[in-house]
């Protein structure tokens, strides 16, 4: 058992001053452009995405290029900073193709390691926020299935692709390797689905006679896709953390103000204990999410375990926080008008995204040698 020795190098689980500055910038942007009424109005319009918001986030703040080195047109930051952006996006549930494009697709392209050529060109476009790319796999695909996804051809239908409607480019894994396919080209159909989580649209992508640029052969592409999914799963934990924090904060606020039986309902122990328990879960989720972000940032050999632990834990915390938020709000929590439902739907969808908690526990079992019977 090598777990003890691996843990000797302690990860940095705190936030730096620069990370807190980034958080403030993202938070104030989202507060100004994507408050709850705006998000609710957006999800029932033709496109849930606010393009000006994305431009400000991706290009203005430079969040889209955080993972990309400066020489490739990015900010030269790390997963730690991207995780902070995702905490804030989770807190606001504003639709923005950040996790899919600025994390997963970007990480895949970075893992292909091209100094110039089409990979570098696309990376620069993504980093600048001029283009959005998404991986053409179901949103539920866990990192462990990344290699197995290198199958089939460019003639295919993929269902449940997250944020394909927002994408300019699809990254399509096939048996031959990884292709970049322009969504605007011939033979590409992106058909919107009705998603449980309206703040993260899903689509069915159908490719028939589409033209693609081969970015990498199957071998290196398999490793890159796995790495992209690992980063996606790891940083999803930070989105779940931000989401859970919002749910707790709003629930505390509501139960302090709401009076029944001539008392604030938040003075009843049965409610207080549930919120205190939730606080403990949020505090724990923060440690797990920071650990995953730091492991990804430092390229730690512990990263696969850190990510699996974070996903196995934070998924449940986010769902629990959103469910408690609805329940402890009482009737108002069941209305369309109140934003609690947005968080519940996002949390539930997130618990499937990049692998369920159960899939991640299986990964843990393999990594720490606790085999099934």
């Amino acid at each position, binding site marked *: *058992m090598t*777990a*003890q020795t*691996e*843990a*000797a190098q*302690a*990860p*940095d*689980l*705190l936030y730096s001053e620069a990370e807190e500055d980034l958080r403030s910038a993202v938070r104030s942007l989202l507060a100004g452009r994507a408050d709850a009424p705006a998000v609710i109005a957006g999800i029932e319009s033709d496109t849930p995405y606010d393009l000006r918001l994305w431009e400000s986030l991706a290009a203005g703040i430079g969040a889209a290029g955080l993972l990309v080195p400066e020489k490739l047109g990015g900010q030269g930051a790390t997963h730690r900073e991207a995780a902070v952006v995702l905490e804030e996006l989770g807190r606001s549930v504003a639709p923005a193709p950040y996790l899919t494009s600025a994390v997963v697709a970007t990480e895949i392209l970075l893992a292909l390691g091209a100094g110039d050529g089409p990979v570098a060109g696309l990376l620069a476009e993504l980093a600048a926020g001029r283009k959005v790319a998404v991986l053409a796999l179901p949103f539920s695909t866990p990192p462990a299935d990344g290699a197995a996804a290198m199958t089939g051809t460019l003639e295919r239908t993929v269902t449940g692709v997250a944020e394909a409607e927002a994408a300019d480019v699809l990254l399509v894994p096939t048996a031959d390797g990884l292709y970049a396919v322009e969504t605007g080209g011939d033979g590409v159909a992106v058909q919107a689905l009705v998603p449980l989580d309206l703040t993260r649209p899903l689509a069915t992508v159908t490719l028939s006679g589409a033209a693609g640029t081969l970015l990498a052969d199957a071998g290196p592409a398999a490793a890159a896709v796995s790495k992209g999914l690992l980063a996606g799963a790891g940083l999803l934990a930070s989105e779940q953390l931000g989401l859970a924090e919002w749910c*707790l904060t709003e629930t*505390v606020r509501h*139960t*302090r103000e709401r009076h029944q039986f001539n*008392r*604030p309902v*938040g*003075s*009843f*122990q049965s*409610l*207080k*204990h549930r*919120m*205190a*328990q939730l*606080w*403990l879960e949020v*505090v*724990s*989720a*923060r*440690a*797990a999410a*920071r*650990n995953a972000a730091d492991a990804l940032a430092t390229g730690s050999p512990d990263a696969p375990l850190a990510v699996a*632990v974070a996903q*196995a*834990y934070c998924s449940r915390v986010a769902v629990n926080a959103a469910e408690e938020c609805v329940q402890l709000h009482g009737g108002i929590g069941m209305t369309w008008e109140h934003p609690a439902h947005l968080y519940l739907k996002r949390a539930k969808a997130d618990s499937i995204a990049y692998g369920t908690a*159960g899939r991640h*526990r*299986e990964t*843990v*079992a393999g990594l*720490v*040698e*606790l*085999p*099934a*019977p």
Partner: protein
Amino acid sequence: MSTAIDAAQIRRRTQELLAAHPPATTGRTDFLQARFDAGLAWVHYPVGLGGLDASRSLQPVVDAELAAAGAPDNDPRRIGIGLGMAAPTILGYGTEEQKQRFLRPLWVGEEVWCQLFSEPGAGSDLAALGTRAVRDEGGDWVVDGQKVWTSSAHVARWAILIARTDPDVPKHQGISYFICDMTDPGVEVRPLRQITGEAEFNEVFLTGVRIPDSRRLGPVGDGWKVAQTTLMNERVSIGGARIPREGGMIGTVARTWREQPALRTHDLHQRLLTLWVEAEVARLTGERLRQQLVAGQPGPEGSGMKLAFARLNQEISGLEVELLGDEGLLYSDWTMRRPEIVDFTGRDAGYRYLRSKGNSIEGGTSEVLLNIVAERVLGLPVEPRNDKDVAWKDLAR
């Protein structure tokens, strides 16, 4: 606040101590006394009281240097109550004379301390305690009452004691804090056998125990406030230990899982993995808390750690007994023993299962801790209370 003493200076002082008192040729007590006098016992304590007014974060420098040199330590697990609870209270509220008299033998371990707080009628509602301290004509205090769940009482030289000095005011206002001599003839210590079969704790009966007024800590009637210092330190010490991955109970059950494939079932596997993940996250949460403390940004997270570890210990040990199957039906030994320390890893799964039931009761029940988190961390309104403005003598009991 800390002075300019830095790690290099602390290391140099430690080396000077080792040179002047080589561990190989110095008796254990002599060495520990010399260490105390050199200010290297607890470096964040004041000069002259075993410290150097240095930053607490420099203590590991001393400990590592001394451990490498094979120096004896003060066996902190044996004197945990003195170190973790009595000492910070004496430091915070004691007179200069009290600090000089008590801290050195406490730290060295020559004098063991115990805590006379809980009573049969005052557990979670500690402030309702009924042990009376009455002042006699000479100015001494005479104490009568019963305390319970007192670890180390049978080996202790001194106790920190809270007792009621004024029954006519509301309960929080009529308490005073004392240092009690455990060799007083009015102190009777009886073992309290618990569900594990052993007697880790005691009942302490106090009958006409005399305490000179010079052994009072803090003003008369201010004992509740003084006790808060003690209790805050208790919670920190219960939840604050650093553990490596698989370092707690989860490590024991994980080893059993790896070594005994015949015991594995699918249901146990799912539960084991869930608990493994939760234990790892609890470890990371503790690690994050420590990093916050080192960075000078202490957060309220500490209040939650005890809650998390209590639940995990109980669930993991419960799973372990079940995993063991036939062996889980057995228990090592029901003989009433008097252990000096609680050792979760050295005993069988049944012991761990039973002993960990106390983790959510001792040092503040989980229910009370959840109230504290809700009110002090989340700012939720307090429950309406009917005991705050009533004289203690008029409370229902």
